[in-house]
């Protein structure tokens, strides 16, 4: 497996390291308003990921809140200069793992007002919506470790290094899990993934 330089990572918040470093420093000194800014920055991202893990928006919201409360309580233990988002997500991961036994995983159908990609026609919108539903269900069926790694990498746009930190594993293992997740999804989804109108080819041996 080759390593490549990291391209632009989507979903990354605007790169203002100094501002965030100031907020963290102030929060560690007891400034709760500063911590509130960090919540403002990362809550939605964390909620998104925890929803992906729990498939339950109630559980995801509760876990997100619990995570930030724990982060607030432990903020003095955060090492300045390291990745705050990865640190918070790590706490979220631990909370999710702890709650996994008790959680009731209710698979919810996608709501009617899903925010799909920009579309120009109702027909394309329906097609994409169905594709999104199918992909979401398939991701839901992935083993938890694979799902966690894949969504952190692709949906959250994190590097393999940060994925590894959050999941408490090595970069190689994180990369492998993402690889396996993609492989499994392709196996399950390949007919649905053909772009509209594309011909089916045969793989060379």
């Amino acid at each position: 497996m080759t390593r490549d330089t990291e391209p632009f990572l989507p979903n990354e918040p605007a790169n203002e390291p100094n501002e965030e470093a100031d907020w963290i420093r102030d929060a560690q000194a007891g400034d709760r308003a500063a911590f509130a800014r960090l919540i403002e920055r990362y809550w939605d991202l964390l909620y998104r990921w925890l929803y992906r893990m729990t498939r339950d928006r109630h559980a995801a919201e509760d876990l997100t809140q619990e995570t930030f409360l724990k982060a607030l309580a432990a903020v003095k233990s955060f090492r300045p200069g390291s990745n705050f988002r990865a640190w918070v997500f790590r706490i979220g991961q631990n909370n999710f793992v702890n709650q996994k036994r008790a959680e009731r995983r209710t698979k919810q159908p996608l709501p009617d007002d899903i925010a799909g990609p920009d579309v120009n026609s109702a027909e394309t919108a329906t097609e994409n919506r169905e594709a999104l539903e199918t992909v979401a269900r398939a991701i839901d069926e992935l083993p938890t470790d694979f799902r966690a790694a894949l969504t952190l990498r692709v949906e959250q746009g994190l590097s393999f290094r940060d994925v590894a930190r959050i999941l408490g594993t090595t970069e190689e293992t994180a990369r492998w899990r993402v690889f396996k997740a993609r492989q499994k999804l392709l196996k399950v989804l390949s007919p649905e993934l053909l772009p509209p109108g594309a011909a089916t080819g045969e793989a060379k041996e």
Partner: protein
Amino acid sequence: MKCQAVQNRILALLDPRHIPSAFLEHVGDCAACRVWVEQVARLESLIECLPVPPAPTDKKASLIAELTGASVAEPLATPSRARPMSSPFRTFIRENANLVGGLAAAILVAFGVWAFSGSTKGPKADVAATTPEDPFLKKVAGRTVALAKATTPTARLQALSGWADDLGTEARSMARVASPDELQEIARWFGKVKDGMVKQAETLPPRALTPAERLTQFDALAAKMGDTVTQTNKALEEVSQDAKPALERIRDTAQDGQQKLRDLARKGV
């Protein structure tokens, strides 16, 4: 390079939509891999776009508001907690005006320092420097002391009833923030206190209360349990799914306690 090897390498990339030149040559020459790469790219894009339903409540805004001091969350479905505006100092002045003298001067200075320092501070609290006292811990310790001072079964019942009330209030107050496990702990405590109440009521010596007193007092205690049932039911309409089992447990325990107390009120009547 064989197709499988190329495909595996592409799947392990940070982003399979950005294919290094080493693999582009093969993909360019292989129709099957070209289609495959389009599938992978589509999958990656779809994963990025997966929608997320909105959060069911607004815990984000509540937490931010609390941290910035914009507003403080009220506990769910509890009676108004507004404490009377007690002013022990007004009473002190009224009753001890003749003795104030030099003490007034000293207190005046202290108040001045407090008043001015309090008015200039913003909502920031120095978490690192001070740990606030825990009012719930104080209540629980206070109930234990009240039980130590209670020399009659009736006094013990009253103390236990107040304690059950405290626990119900705390559970509803914590339902937004505590984990299910923590709420279940409070529910467990509530159960112990309720069992203690029922036991006291059951073992009350026959001559301790007249039948009429028994009926009045036990019905009053049952009514308080009923209040807990009502308040908890209201809270259940607002809490998340994970908080419900613990609150339901408290509600059911309170209902059980209410019924038992009513039955005991009428025992032998």
